[in-house]
């Protein structure tokens, strides 16, 4: 009997020792294997649920997320519908719950329809991260592509660099009621105070419609023949203006165009010299950051409370910002990426 008990004790001791040894070794390898990933568990499964599986912008973002989870020793599952509807995303959330995923990264097709399902996922212990398009549900972290102020300020800086910080400039915006454009324009005006020789002469609205944008652009150019620069903080506006300028080289020589554009649309105008530089956030980095944020939340090394810091691989350290207005806790990706002839060919969104 005594002998038996001794064996049992020995076995228990061995088991405990082995477990301890094992866990310490896993810890050590994770520490040495990826030094930036302190405190993140290995083998995490993160579901990326984009607006749909075809959108090239989202595909790039999802691939950024895959890179992040590969670096952390986890994996990404991309799941969504073919149509941009919330209903098509719900089965993917259910699949994540059933697969006991550690986190969901979602680009909401609808601010509220997804909340019941996401709430279910949250109750099942899954951490929720939204990116690209936020959802208005509790208990999730929003990865903001770019800070409103940064976008406004950086666009003025970008134009100033190209026109020697002097001359008349104008803004070609989307709809006069567009919330995001208007807040960017507000910060542009603030930033223009730092450039005393640059004068904003007019803001025109093309309603994100190519035909309207073209009409208001032509009106702008004939009304202000001395115009030096145009900022168009909308992809429709900048591509329409670029197309017009590329066929009117005499005007293009005098007027510098910049703003927020898609590399795929702007490529030809960068190559023919119509546009020198424009900017947009990098969707790949957006997905990468979302992947790291999801992993940090799932490992418990980050939380939704403001001021929490976590590391995001090559992008460095990020801090969770407090909730503001209709946006819950969020993280801002950083300054937008500037695209010019040196890098525009590397992006296909």
């Amino acid at each position, binding site marked *: 009997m005594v002998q038996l008990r001794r064996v049992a004790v020995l076995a228990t001791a061995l088991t405990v020792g082995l477990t301890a040894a094992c866990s310490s070794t896993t810890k050590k390898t994770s520490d040495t294997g990826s030094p930036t990933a302190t405190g993140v568990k290995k083998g995490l499964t993160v579901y990326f649920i984009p607006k749909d599986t075809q959108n090239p912008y989202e595909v790039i973002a999802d691939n950024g997320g895959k890179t992040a989870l590969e670096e952390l020793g986890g994996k990404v599952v*991309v*799941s969504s519908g073919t149509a941009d509807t919330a209903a098509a995303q*719900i089965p993917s959330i259910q699949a994540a719950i059933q697969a006991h995923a550690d986190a969901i990264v979602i680009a909401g097709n609808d601010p509220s329809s997804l909340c019941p399902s996401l709430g279910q996922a949250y109750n099942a212990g899954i951490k929720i991260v939204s990116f690209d398009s936020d959802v208005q549900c509790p208990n999730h972290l929003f990865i903001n592509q770019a800070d409103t102020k940064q976008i406004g300020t950086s666009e003025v800086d970008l134009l100033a660099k190209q026109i020697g910080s002097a001359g008349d400039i104008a803004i070609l915006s989307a709809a006069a009621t567009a919330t995001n454009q208007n807040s960017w324009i507000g910060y542009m005006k603030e930033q223009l105070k730092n450039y005393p020789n640059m004068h904003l002469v007019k803001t025109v609205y093309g309603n994100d419609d190519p035909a309207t944008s073209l009409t208001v652009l032509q009106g702008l150019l004939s009304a202000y023949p001395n115009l030096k620069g145009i900022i168009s903080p909308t992809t429709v506006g900048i591509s329409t203006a670029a197309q017009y300028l590329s066929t009117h080289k005499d005007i293009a020589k005098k007027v510098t165009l910049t703003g927020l554009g898609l590399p795929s649309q702007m490529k030809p105008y960068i190559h023919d010299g119509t546009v020198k530089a424009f900017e947009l956030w990098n969707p790949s980095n957006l997905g990468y950051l979302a992947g790291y944020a999801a992993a940090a939340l799932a490992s418990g090394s980050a939380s939704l409370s403001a001021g929490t810091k976590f590391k995001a691989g090559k992008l460095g350290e990020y801090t969770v910002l407090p909730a503001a207005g209709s946006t819950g806790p969020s993280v801002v990706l950083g300054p937008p990426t500037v695209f010019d002839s040196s890098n525009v060919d590397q992006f296909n969104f």
Partner: protein
Amino acid sequence: MSDTQTAPPAVSAVDAPHRELPWRSALRWESGLVIVLIATLIFAGTQSSDFFTQSTMFYIGLNMGEIAIMALPLTLIVMTGEIDLSVASMLGLAGTIMGYLFEHHWNIYLAMAAALVVGAVGGALNGALITRLGLPSIAVTIGTLTLFRGLAEVILGNSTVGGYPLSLTKIGVVPIQGTQISYSVAIFLGLAVICAIVLHATPLGRSIFAIGLQSEAAHFAGIRVGRIKFWLYVLSGVLCALAGILFTLKNASARFDAGTGLELNVVAIVLLGGVSIFGGRGSIVGVVLSVVIVGCLQQALTQMHVDAQVQNIVLGGLLLVSVIVPNGGEAIRRIRARTRRRVPA
């Protein structure tokens, strides 16, 4: 449910030489569906480790409930040789009406009742255009497909209406207590039993079979063809509106584009259920089996992370198979008859 399996020899009065045919072929089709279902379950169980978990049944019900409810009146309509493609748009319009009225401080139950009334009116519009003016149902319901969706868009625009009582929106999150059955599926099963009894065990059901087999003969046999078809469209409108209410509560929000494109799923389920697109043949049991098969298949494919595009291919393939197989027999017979004629010559 057992007596629903035995579709009566409904056509005896109309089509005496083919007396046995609909009954036997329907039974054969349903046995085929049972085999397909078993195959689907084996496929799902072996390919996805999450398939045989408790919540699967609930999720399938949650995703299929509204589609299944809309499939029931469509089954009856297709049995008469007609079609209703406006079902998903009616779902969207009903949800929109309910959301709009709720936003304008109507009592939620009154808003639901109004949605059902709109469903009945929409269905009556379809029915009147088809039976009174004698217009082809495919053209009429493609028209109302666009019309209903357009009305919904005018009413709600791009906004989303939420804020419904939690006691109602819980149907999108929890099953009926103590079970894994979603509320929408419970409603579907209740309606399916009623439809099965009406279709397979009442004079009205026999009339529906008769209309589908030979509309004119049915008319001369004293069956009020127009009136039956009209009320079937009204029924379709009301049940699609009910599906719209459930869909809205499930997602806790009303949008004009709710359920866009679902009409194809509904038609696919009805045809896979063995209902002949030419009318006169089919059973409710077949449609119920078809709902279960499509639900299991979609759930398994989602769990396996199969792309949504590929899932659409699978659904489209099923639709084709369900049209080709029952009509393929006839085609083969025709080809054989032709070769036989050629051989002696």
